[in-house]
């Protein structure tokens, strides 16, 4: 396909050798968000079928861990489930690394309750904040709305050092503390289990986990909007949908033909792959815009 042409044009780097019918060789390294990882894995899997001689390896050190390696120059790209932080951007600058941010999919953070819960099916942002914020008291459902049961709320949330937690914390709680009695887990499946097992439980996690467990628990509508592919893609499910990003090292795109090719493939296929693994695709324009920017980097 298109990679054919590019392959012929450059070739100044030792690791990129041409190889018959548009086959290129080389290696690409990435790391970062565990949220983005399933999409990347799908992309790598598909890409391997097209370019079997390009070695793509991707770590799952989390968004922060990914940036750390990105700053150290160890990786070509870094997956992120949030935007880059100021400190990280500054560090990149210090390291003389120029980068570009690509959006590749949406993830809706889904607030869920036990399937027996018939009261808290629709919550406002304020109610969410009231439920989740740490205020030094033990909260009952009836504290949020007097018509709700007089029973203690049980909280399940992703680990405090995850992008999901961060995002929720920032958007819903304005950066204030999450209730300290929350049961935290590094594994979102476990949160699913927790909420399923307790009538008074509430929890949140990535949309993909909800999709897989739809029949076991209930998603809470936020301000009357239910999380679905449509509402996330068209931006109705605000504010709890976030973008997932890939940050690429500009220099590496120039140097490493295989990397360029992989990124190009990624942007072309990200939408499909995102949907395949339970995320929400971006509007097509966004991908096209990304491809254009990628071309400019070359």
């Amino acid at each position, binding site marked *: 396909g298109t990679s054919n042409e590019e392959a012929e044009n450059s070739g100044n780097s030792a690791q990129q050798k041409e190889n018959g019918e548009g086959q290129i060789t080389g290696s690409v390294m990435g790391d970062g968000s565990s949220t983005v990882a399933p999409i990347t894995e799908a992309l790598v899997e598909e890409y391997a079928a097209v370019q079997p001689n390009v070695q793509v390896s991707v770590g799952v050190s989390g968004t922060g*861990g990914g*940036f750390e390696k990105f700053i150290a120059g160890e990786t070509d790209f870094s997956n992120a489930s*949030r935007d880059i932080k100021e400190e*990280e951007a500054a560090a990149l600058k210090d390291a003389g690394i120029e980068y570009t941010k690509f959006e590749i999919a949406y993830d809706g953070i889904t607030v869920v309750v036990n399937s027996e819960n018939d009261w808290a099916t629709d919550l406002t942002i304020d109610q969410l904040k009231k439920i989740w914020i740490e205020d030094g008291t033990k909260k009952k459902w009836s504290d949020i709305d007097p018509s709700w049961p007089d029973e203690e709320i049980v909280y399940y949330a992703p680990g*405090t*050092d995850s992008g999901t937690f961060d995002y929720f914390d*920032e958007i819903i709680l304005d950066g204030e*503390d999450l209730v300290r009695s*929350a049961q935290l887990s590094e594994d979102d499946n*476990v949160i699913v289990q927790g909420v399923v097992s307790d009538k008074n439980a509430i929890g949140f996690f990535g949309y993909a986990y909800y999709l897989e467990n739809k029949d076991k628990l209930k998603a809470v509508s936020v301000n009357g909007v239910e999380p679905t592919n449509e509402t996330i893609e068209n931006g109705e499910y605000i504010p709890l949908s976030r973008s997932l990003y890939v940050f690429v090292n500009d220099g590496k795109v120039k140097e490493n033909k295989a990397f360029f090719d992989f990124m190009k493939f990624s942007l072309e296929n990200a939408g499909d792959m995102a949907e395949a693994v339970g995320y929400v695709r971006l509007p097509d324009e966004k991908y096209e815009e990304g491809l254009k920017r990628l071309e400019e980097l070359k």
Partner: protein
Amino acid sequence: MVQRSGNGQSIQQLIAKNQKRTFKNIIEKGMPLFFIMAALISVITTLGIVFTLIFETIEFFKRVSIVEYLSGTEWYPFSGSNPTFGVLPLVLGTLKVTIIAIAVAVPLGLAVAIYLTEYATDRTRRIIKPILEVLAGVPTIVYGFFALTFVTPVLQTIIPSLKLFNALSPGIVVGIMILPSIISLSEDAMSSVPNGIREGALALGATKLEVSLKVVLPAALSGIMASIVLGISRAIGETMIVSLAGGATPTFDFNITGSIQTMTAYIVQVSSGDAGFGTTIYYSMYAVGFTLFIFTLMMNLVAHYISKRFREEY
């Protein structure tokens, strides 16, 4: 009469002819040099660990007072408004798991070891021991899921108030994980107690139980202690089981039915998490690592002292 071999030379003459002193000398001098260098690698490793941890730890203590760290009872590093770095909840989490693990593994392990050395036939021992050693090799994430998806639900039927994340279940499972090494090492220690000593006791009319508990066990004490120490170290250092089944909530209480976080689980959380490079949280990972290192170091020194003290020489 002098023996002649082969080509008519005496063996001593053959030997004299074969001496290649210089080459021999090089090997004789060279090998010990290689050995001592190998031995020094373990020292260098320790230095490397200290070196790895110390700079980031110092950086951390530039930002957080060491007093707050050591005496604080709140560990909320991710709190946006008011992060706190009191390590005690993490230490307590580690201690809870370790104590439960030891409470499970030591009696059970010693019982099995006694059974294998003193009661079981040779055949049984030769079958059971390697099977149990398989337990030792089972990856800890497997144990982690075992704790979360099997032990916790089973325990919940007995203790309804048990939370999904708790100290009890991972504690028990860590105990099971260290069981094989306790069994294996104490079994070795006990079976190396000379048989003559056992026979001496049996000949006095002692029962097997009395021989095991009053003669063999004390005689093997230093080996048994060593196995327990190693078990404790592994319990303290265990990561995946507690990350999966213990939760991620550092609490400062003595409740074992609720969610906890251990020092190791915290390190994994940060190292696979979102914390930005250069943040206090990032440095805290090293400080906790250092604490963990000091912790095991102290424990080993104490254990070393104890086992020296109670050694029964034979």
